[in-house]
């Protein structure tokens, strides 16, 4: 909690939702953000210190020395430990204080006094397990075949939007905005603008889809929970994109704070052989810029939404996907609060 704010009343469910649900993997940044120096970043309402050890493994602690609260990210990397710049206190990646140079043998030594996080690096991003208990085994991180299968090729697009992360989630769960907001784009001018939608259950979540329209525009979107909350959608490519499958997007949104979120869009295509490298060439040379222009339309819209816009809405049939997701996330947050006994 920020010490400058004095809450009148804090709804614990709202707090969980504001900072991101617990016991899930969240992508926090592209792999390239963490190089040979420790990095500080705010994610899931917390300040994190990330660093790489000599073998390239990324570690994450709360960016708060257990001694006096100095930023560990200003410190010195000692493999899987980091030495606080302020008094040299050494903290291991699992949160244990291994050395207090100023007071050898003091009771802080050997304590798991720092908050530690499990880290995985996959598909060009660093993932953090958002848990209050490092000793608890994290769930496996499972992502969809567009990322894991060799039949697909992908590029990660990462951006930070000045918006509550839930608007970014709502935006993906609202395929109909493609027909209007992106009608001038290179791939989303076709299709019925008055479609009707249905929700279809899946093993790990649900699909929100247009009835009777597939492969014409942004016609469906999927939400899933497989140790990480992700969304998936497909948009047809224009003919100029060349042979190969539809253009698929796997998306994750990670809260930074109330005003900022981190969006991850893996742009994927089922392509092999010469079509794969040709798509990758075109993506680097020109398609990325076009996709970016479309994403900017979303960002600008999200950033212009008033923070409380979603408290005064009049929803209609096209909004049942995002309503479903909001309810589900709220329900998960309630379960977590109940389980934690607060």
């Amino acid at each position, binding site marked *: 909690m920020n010490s400058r704010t004095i809450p009148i009343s804090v709804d614990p469910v709202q707090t969980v939702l504001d900072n991101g649900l617990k016991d899930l993997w969240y992508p926090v940044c592209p792999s390239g953000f963490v190089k040979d120096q420790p990095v500080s970043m705010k994610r899931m309402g917390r300040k994190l210190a990330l660093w790489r050890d000599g073998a390239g493994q990324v570690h994450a602690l709360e960016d708060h020395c257990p001694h006096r609260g100095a930023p560990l990210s200003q410190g010195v990397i000692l493999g899987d430990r980091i030495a606080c710049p302020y008094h040299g206190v050494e903290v291991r990646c699992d949160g244990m204080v291994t050395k207090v140079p100023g007071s050898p043998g003091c009771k802080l030594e050997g304590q798991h006094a720092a908050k530690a996080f499990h880290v995985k690096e996959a598909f060009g991003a660093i993932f953090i397990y958002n848990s209050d208990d490092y000793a608890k085994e994290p769930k496996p991180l499972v992502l969809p075949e567009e990322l894991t299968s060799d039949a697909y090729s992908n590029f990660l697009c990462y951006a930070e939007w000045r918006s509550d992360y839930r608007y970014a989630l709502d935006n993906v769960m609202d395929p109909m905005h493609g027909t209007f907001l992106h009608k001038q784009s290179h791939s989303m001018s076709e299709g019925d603008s008055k479609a009707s939608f249905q929700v279809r259950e899946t093993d790990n979540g649900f699909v929100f889809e247009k009835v009777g329209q597939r492969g014409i525009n942004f016609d469906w979107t999927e939400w899933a929970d497989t140790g990480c909350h992700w969304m998936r959608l497909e948009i047809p490519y224009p003919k100029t994109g060349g042979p190969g499958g539809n253009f698929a997007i796997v998306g994750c949104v990670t809260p930074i704070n109330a005003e900022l979120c981190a969006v991850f869009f893996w742009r994927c295509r089922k392509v092999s052989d010469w079509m794969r490298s040709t798509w990758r060439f075109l993506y680097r040379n020109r398609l990325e810029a076009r996709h970016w222009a479309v994403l900017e339309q979303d*960002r600008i819209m999200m950033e212009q939404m008033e923070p409380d816009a979603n408290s005064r809405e009049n929803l209609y049939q096209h909004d049942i996907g995002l309503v479903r997701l909001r309810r589900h996330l709220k329900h998960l947050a309630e379960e977590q609060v109940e389980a934690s006994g607060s």
Partner: protein
Amino acid sequence: MSQERYLEPHQARTRMPTLFEDLLGDSIERAFGEGVTTLPELVAYLNRVGPSGERGEAWTEEGFQALMKRLGD
């Protein structure tokens, strides 16, 4: 309080594209737009419409594939 945030349109490329790459991209997109779907058709299109290979040579399937691998992968 506003803070620095990351908004980088170009995350996939490591350098600016060359003029040759831009012309080649234009031509490949035009070929696809005109219905080309196979490698032999694409190579024939490039040999007919241009640009020629990096050193002025004619396109071959092998040469095109090697260049795409270098620029794409």
